């Protein structure tokens, strides 16, 4: 028996159902909308939430970029891209500015997103309050009542214990002064990019069956205190060893031969673009060290 799959894998009814949940998410920024998450040909926890959003939205004219940990070519990005192109035949790109849909795991591209673009973030744990409240029924109530003292207390205790907010990635953010949201495990470095983003940002959690959104130009503030401000990861005096970029999120690498630590751009397509532009002699970027 041989079976042809529908355009974008799903049957049209499923796609419409996911889009309905997405519309609700856009209408209530930061609110987690439950949806009937489908099982995908890619494993739960590997981006099925993002994948379902992308597949439900994609049209024949879309241009897709997929990144994982900042890289267009990492295992999972390649796999997801392959599945989407196989079932849609659409064009893919590495350049963030060229893409209409960018699906990403754990990063927001360095190049600022534009209006009309959609950023789809893959979310493993959509519930920002799960850390201190294991029950779904309870966290739903806490959100309904805007009862976020647990989240503040969590940060306060971290400051008391460690002298810093030890959230790592996925630092909770307040959306439109109403819902506390897990921004997906993007580094704190990327949190400010959510605020007043020109692009629509959709977040999909397949296993947890939730969709939520940051519509364009929405206020998104990382949780912090008046006397203890939010801090991004520090790459002070560090720069990319390949293209020389500063002020970007860097990967820390260990040189096999010398045993020295060096850094390079985490956003690989950004790095490559800088190198290309430099070799083309356009000199747009002149901060090379």
């Amino acid at each position, binding site marked *: *028996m041989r079976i042809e799959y529908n355009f974008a894998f799903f049957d049209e009814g*499923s796609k419409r159902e996911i889009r309905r949940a997405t519309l609700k998410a856009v209408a209530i920024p930061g609110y987690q909308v439950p949806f009937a998450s489908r*099982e995908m040909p890619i494993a739960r926890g590997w981006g099925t939430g993002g994948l379902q959003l992308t597949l439900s939205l994609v049209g024949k004219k879309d241009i897709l970029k997929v990144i994982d*940990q900042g890289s267009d070519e990492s295992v999972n990005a390649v796999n997801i891209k392959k599945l989407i192109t196989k079932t849609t035949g659409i064009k893919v790109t590495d350049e963030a500015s060229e893409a209409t849909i960018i699906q990403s795991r754990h990063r927001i591209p360095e190049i600022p997103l534009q209006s009309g673009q959609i950023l789809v973030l893959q979310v*493993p744990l959509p519930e920002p309050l799960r850390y201190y409240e294991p029950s*779904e029924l309870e966290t*739903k109530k806490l959100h309904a009542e805007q009862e976020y003292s647990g989240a503040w207390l969590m940060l306060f205790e971290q400051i008391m214990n460690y002298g810093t907010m030890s959230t*790592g990635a996925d630092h909770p953010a307040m959306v439109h002064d109403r819902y506390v949201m897990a921004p997906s495990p993007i580094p704190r470095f990327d949190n400010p990019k959510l605020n007043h983003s020109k692009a629509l940002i959709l977040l999909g959690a397949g296993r947890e069956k939730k969709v939520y959104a940051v519509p364009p130009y929405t206020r998104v503030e990382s949780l912090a205190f008046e006397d203890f401000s939010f801090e991004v990861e520090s790459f002070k005096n560090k720069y990319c060893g390949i293209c020389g970029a500063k002020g970007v999120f860097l*990967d820390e690498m260990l040189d096999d031969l010398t045993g020295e630590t060096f850094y390079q751009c*985490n956003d690989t397509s950004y790095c490559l673009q800088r190198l290309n532009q430099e070799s083309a002699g356009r000199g747009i970027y002149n901060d090379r060290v």
Partner: protein
Amino acid sequence: MGYVAVKGGIQAIEESIKRLKYERLKKGTVLKFQEIEGGMRCLIDQVMSESSLYSETLAAMAIKQAEGSPEEAVFLLRAYRSTLPRKHYSRTVQSEEMSVERRISSSFKEVPGGQILGAANDYTHRLIDFDLNEETDDEAIAWVREYALESGVDNDQTDLSDLPKTLDYLREEGLIPTCEINNNEPDDVTKESLHFPTSRSQRLQILTRGQTGAVTSLGYAALRSYGALHPTVGELRIGKLPIYVNSPFHDQKEDEDAYYIGEIKVTEVETLFPAEVQKGKGEKEIEFEIGYGICYGQNETKAIAMSILDRCLETGNPEYPPHNEEFVLLHIDSVESTGFISHLKLPHYVTFQSKLDSVRKSKK
């Protein structure tokens, strides 16, 4: 400075996929679907049950592709299931109409309709049968022919598709509280995600598609010490149930307009739990409460464990994890648990870098 590639993942992935194919084929033999369907009945039943997709042929294909890994086979079938438009719901199935192949009750020595052992591993010694090494197709065919002749002389007149339920006997005596027939449309967990507190229809759906090992383990935990009593199997039956869908062309849902679309083999279990009930003015009585388990195919351990968990979730004693619906229902799905565990193999260097930064800051 050492060389660090910016690009280069695609080719490595292609090679890994090729290597996987090599592992499947390297011994130079190819499994036929028919062989899997013929000889791996229990694996097929397990995979169909966890997949919520009843097709022996598709299950056999998935098992072949997955090289026999149940978690992979279930994964394939669930993903395939997502591509199928769902056009009909079946009519309500009455399990009394089961064409019974096996039926036992451990509550009574004899039950109306009789104990029917059918096919089961329960009565075998688990000794490896080295003779299977020499088994041939011809011998198998001859044996089956002889067996058919032998069972043909059976004069038993019992109608196996109309056996009374063991529990009816207790119900008539008033030992099981009567319950009204609930004709509410069940919730469909594949069309709407779980919300808590759940309905019983949602619970039963999640339990029946749960990973066999996970359902068994949690059922065992409840049985051993975390919150259930020792139940008695009122009745365990295995057999085929006919499935009908309403005619899309008639508004009246008359029986004769319904279409027969096939039959499914299921294991159905009703277990009995003695429970104390208050009868006003401080008086107490003991009645039996029921746990219900059902799943595709012959999956007896899973069905019994499901019936235990069904009872636990109905009781909902906050002291015990197997009574906590979020604890049980959100963690027993094969695709979800294996997926999230396996995602740990994905690169996490961005989140790790972020954590590293926090750790370093805390050391300053």
